């Protein structure tokens, strides 16, 4: 009798579960269709802005976010504890959101940058840019693509990148392009949380054990050589965006403040050299980016007509 009873209960439960599945397809985040993240947004280029330059600038900011978001996502299930694991996944999600809008904005401004796929492919422009470009077409700074180190490296790199990006986004809120301005206004709030997260952990590790301090010191020696590249800037950034040189001082002040609270000293290390005058913004990347993209892009590239 008992057996029959249990079986009936299980059957009831299954009936309910399937009923929900069948009537509510739209509730599944994936498996419906692509949507345009800029649907209904006015993407007219304002007077005085060059559309192709604006597209390049959005690629730069979008690629910084996309590539670093992927590095952050590689931490999933590997963080020191569950809370940090979830926090890092949240950081990655924010950056993927920023990347998606920026890449969509880039494509809307200049469709010639979007990789061509077989006719009938439903892949939207921002996904084409993310999954169907070669490493040499990415415009992110090299600090975003460096392979992950330990938790101290995560904290140190996140501190630098989020401080720098926040300073730029604060200025972009007043950008003449309404889309860029809106993305920045939203991003500022997200990045402030990222910077606080990194800053708090930096101070915690600095004041922890001799081992956590040693690891932080090593992390700074690995990250610091990639900082000068952030401030170099390109003509595109100076013309249609924010000159990163203009925020270098402010970024330095924030970093000095965190270092001072942690009792840490900036390492005296030379900047990573450019290769024949080129760095990340010019498409010159480390081999690590190619390997990262191979993993990130493999499924999309295998199914250029795929619907997800």
């Amino acid at each position, binding site marked *: 009798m008992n057996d029959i009873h249990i079986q009936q209960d299980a059957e009831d439960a299954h009936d309910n579960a399937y009923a929900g599945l069948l009537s509510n397809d*739209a*509730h599944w*985040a994936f498996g*419906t269709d692509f*949507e345009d*993240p*800029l*649907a*209904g*947004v006015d993407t007219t280029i304002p007077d005085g802005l060059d559309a192709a330059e604006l597209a390049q600038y959005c690629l730069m900011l979008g690629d910084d976010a996309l590539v670093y978001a992927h590095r952050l996502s590689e931490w999933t299930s590997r963080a020191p504890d569950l*809370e*940090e694991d*979830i*926090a890092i*996944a*949240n*950081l990655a*999600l*924010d*950056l*993927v*959101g*920023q990347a*998606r*809008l920026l890449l969509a904005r880039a494509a809307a401004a200049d469709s010639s940058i979007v990789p061509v796929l077989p006719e009938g492919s439903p892949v939207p422009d921002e996904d084409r840019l993310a999954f169907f470009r070669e490493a040499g077409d990415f415009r992110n700074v090299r600090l975003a693509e460096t392979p992950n180190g330990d938790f101290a490296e995560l904290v140190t790199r996140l501190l630098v990148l989020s401080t720098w990006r*926040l300073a730029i986004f*604060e200025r972009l809120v007043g950008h003449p392009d*309404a*889309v860029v*301005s*809106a*993305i920045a*206004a*939203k*991003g*500022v*709030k*997200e990045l*402030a*949380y990222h*910077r*606080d*997260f990194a*800053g*708090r952990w930096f*101070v915690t590790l600095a004041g922890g054990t001799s081992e956590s301090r040693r690891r932080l010191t090593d992390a700074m020696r690995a990250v610091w050589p990639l900082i000068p590249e952030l401030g170099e800037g390109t003509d595109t950034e100076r013309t249609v965006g924010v000159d990163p040189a203009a925020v270098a001082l402010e970024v330095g002040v*924030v970093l000095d*403040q*965190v270092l001072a*609270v942690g009792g840490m000293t900036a390492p005296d290390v030379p900047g990573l050299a450019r290769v024949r005058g080129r760095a990340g913004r010019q498409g010159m990347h480390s081999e690590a980016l190619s390997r990262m993209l191979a993993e990130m892009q493999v499924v999309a590239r295998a199914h250029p007509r795929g619907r997800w």
Partner: protein
Amino acid sequence: MVATLKGTDLQRVWAIASEVTDPELPMLTLADLGVLRNVEQDAVGAIVVSITPTYTGCPAMAAMRDDLVRRLTEAGIAPVRVRVQLSPPWTSDWISDEGRKALRENGISPPGTSSRGPIALTLKPKRRAIQCPQCGSGDTEVTSEFGSTACKALYRCRACGEPFDHLKEH
């Protein structure tokens, strides 16, 4: 908020749209959350519903859009288009008083006032005067600024020992 156009009762459209709930916070309607911004009729007669995303990467936005289209279509309102309105950006200050009450009643601590102006670096845990939504005690501590969804921080009540979500100031 609702402009009345000839031939369509936009008040009714707004009323139906505002009943759609957030997929992650089902105790909140999109109107209470502040995501639902406007309903209007375009030149060819389609109903256009404007929503403003909470967080840039929030995956719930797609579900909200689909829910809005389904609910309005079921009510005989068609065609329906959902427009994303990026500016002004969503802020947690837009959550209505009813929404805050519903959050509290469902064990989620509602957000305080969102900060304005230059963003200060905070190297100590954020100080928020938060009451435990379970037992009402003010003796609470943050476990993590990043919780189960993009919009929540994770807290713990030191009085009753229960963990709870806090909707972040944004």
